[in-house]
């Protein structure tokens, strides 16, 4: 499994050759794209105004990040919870492990959390003798398959139900091998039954958070399977693991973001469950409530040209509408966050040298920015990383040289005219009577997949000059 964005060229090539993946990705349009369009149609209100409101809420949060996080910590603490700060992945893993050790936990159920993927928590917990159990169906499937998620809200989107059935047969060996797993419902039923026991046995539960409301000290998650509630309510200890940027001013702001999130993500007016977590409880619910706030490169982006990427509410609309993601899927990106948001975020948090490919693999078609519920200018941020790559000498040498030669001529019109005049004649000559050229040594990438229609033979400028 590709785990570095540096491998994007080879990984994307392999993904393009994967017929099964191609069929799975074909569902992006019919599944997510169409549902989102319908939800916005149904919304009835002014969607653009809501997007603008969402943008403003997120920008306010980012410009007041320090004070909002401190306020969040105070309100959580006042209610008996504990807030932990983690500068990077290593600190975050250790904080979580310490909490779990203090709680004497062995089995740990987990709601879906991309931050958990980001900090590679599961292998770390396993290495320390704990048993993490993913309870979101998609996460459960990929945990069994030892794969990373391929999509932010649908981690097993790259798989077909036949592959899932195969995985279940291999993992659940205590069940009747002749059982029927042809239908989706049978798969869901089997996972549900097995997970019930885990929910009851769990000593601690870990969830992510979609939003944090500073004023109320609340953490909010949305789920459709109800696994989030079982994860957070049944065990004695609940850990909310999330990024520092998830905070907003209050529940009113969170409610606006919620309206944007579910419509943009799955095309639902509202998710099946919205859980507002307000801390420990003496009755139902966890006795111990912890929030782990993870930076892991985020604060570096504050105040810079890529800051707007932190507005993201992880809805995946940009993935669902991206033709690049739609062609290669999530694993090719080699990073926790794929698609346009990954292309804009990863160079910032993983470094330009590591993740520049992702920023380059875009046609700048602009569809991601068009569907983004908080109006992140994704192509502009990708372009920013390209500029950083170019300025720091990290761009491929042959590419920079070619661009340099072209720019040299383009900045000298008289010379440019002479060269383009020759090029038009030369290409016309070798294209000959066929009207198109099938192969030239350069640019290799062009002729790898297409012919070149031949030019008409003279440049516009020389014909114009001759005419007037």
């Amino acid at each position, binding site marked *: 499994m590709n785990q570095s964005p540096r491998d994007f060229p080879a990984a*994307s*090539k392999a993904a*393009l050759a994967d017929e099964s993946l191609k069929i799975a990705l074909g569902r992006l349009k019919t599944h997510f794209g169409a549902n989102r369009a319908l939800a916005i149609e149904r919304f009835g209100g002014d969607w653009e105004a809501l997007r603008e409101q969402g943008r403003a809420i997120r920008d306010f949060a980012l410009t007041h990040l320090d004070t909002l996080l401190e306020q969040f910590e105070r309100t959580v603490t006042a209610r008996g919870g504990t807030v932990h700060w983690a500068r990077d992945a290593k600190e975050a893993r250790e904080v979580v492990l310490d909490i779990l050790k203090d709680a004497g936990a062995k089995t740990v159920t987990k709601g879906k959390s991309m931050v958990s993927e980001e900090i590679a928590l599961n292998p770390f917990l396993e290495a320390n003798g704990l048993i993490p159990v993913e309870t979101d169906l998609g996460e459960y499937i990929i945990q069994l398959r030892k794969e990373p998620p391929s999509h932010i809200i649908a981690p097993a989107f790259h798989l077909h139900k036949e592959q899932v059935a195969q995985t279940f047969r291999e993992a659940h060996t205590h069940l009747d091998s002749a059982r029927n797993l042809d239908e989706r419902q049978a798969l869901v039923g089997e996972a549900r039954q097995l997970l019930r026991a885990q929910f009851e046995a769990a000593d601690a539960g870990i969830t992510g958070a979609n939003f944090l409301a500073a004023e109320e000290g609340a953490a909010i998650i949305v789920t459709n399977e109800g696994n989030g509630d079982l994860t957070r309510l049944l065990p004695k200890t609940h850990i909310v693991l999330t990024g520092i940027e998830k905070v907003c001013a209050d529940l009113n702001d969170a409610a606006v973001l919620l309206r944007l999130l579910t419509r943009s993500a799955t095309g639902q007016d509202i998710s099946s469950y919205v859980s507002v977590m307000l801390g420990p409880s003496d009755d139902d619910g966890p006795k111990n409530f912890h929030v782990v706030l993870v930076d892991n490169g985020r604060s570096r982006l504050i105040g810079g040209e890529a800051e707007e990427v932190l507005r993201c509410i992880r809805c995946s609309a940009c993935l669902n509408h991206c*033709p*690049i993601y739609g*062609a290669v899927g999530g694993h090719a990106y080699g990073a926790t966050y794929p698609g346009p948001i990954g292309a804009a975020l990863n160079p910032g948090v993983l470094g330009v040298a590591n993740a520049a490919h992702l920023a*380059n*693999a*875009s*046609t*700048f*078609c*602009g*569809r991601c920015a*068009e569907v983004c519920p908080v109006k992140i200018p994704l192509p*502009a941020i990708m*372009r920013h*990383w390209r*500029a*950083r790559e*170019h*300025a720091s000498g990290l*761009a491929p040498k042959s*590419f*920079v040289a070619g*661009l*340099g030669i*072209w*720019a040299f*001529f*383009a*900045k000298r*019109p008289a010379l*440019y005219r002479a060269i*383009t005049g020759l*090029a*038009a004649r030369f290409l016309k000559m070798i294209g000959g*009577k066929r*009207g*198109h050229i*099938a192969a030239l040594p350069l*640019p*290799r*990438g*062009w002729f*790898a*997949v*297409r*012919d*070149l*229609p031949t*030019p*008409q033979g*003279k*440049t*516009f*400028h020389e*014909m*114009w*000059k001759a005419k007037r």
Partner: protein
Amino acid sequence: MTSKPRVGLFVTCLVDLMRPSVGFAAVKLLEQAGCDVFVPETQTCCGQPAWNAGADKDAAALARSVIDAFEGFDYVVAPSGSCGGMIHVHYVEVLRDDAAYLPRAKALAAKTYELIQFLVNVRGMKNVSAHCQTRACYHTSCSSLREMKVKDEPRQLLDTVSGLQLSELKEAEVCCGFGGLFSVKYPGISERMADDKIADIRSTGADLLVGPDLGCLLHLAGRMERQGNPVKVRHIAEVLADMRDPALGEP
């Protein structure tokens, strides 16, 4: 009688090198729309390849030279949403740190148009006198659609071409996979996107593909040539100006 507007034609580097007939079609249409057309000699490229590659200094140098050459005209018109979008949307970003040129970039942006948008929205063109007996579909460029906000204008004018029957693509707002240097850097992904677009084109039963940007058209025509696909490809200006040069890739 009011004097004719003075229009600076931004030819675009691809039209200049690959397909001058598009430039002449643009001149013809602009003259039909009552404009005086000028072609500044110092223009080469809008700088977009440099800008998109992150070569900001080269992009800024080219932007300044375009501003110098074009700011004296009433309008700047390009037979391309991509180059038009570069001037209209991005020059103010390219020159954000250049106090002398930034106001000039803003002024130029405000009077820069994509050709069809200019003909319909600024000059009020309602119909063309052209004939083309064919079933056609229109493939917008992403920059024409999202940066220049051109959507209905090309369809309005194509509807007035006698004999031309226009079919809509199912995924008309999805990128064809050209993306400038993207097409060369990631040919495999570009190919997949082209093939998806071509399948959509074929399903309309169209014999002719028209579009506002030569980049997308060279990419799609080149790919269809490689596949042995018979759909003809032309720039929309050529069809609207009733010009009959061989289609892209044809002898």
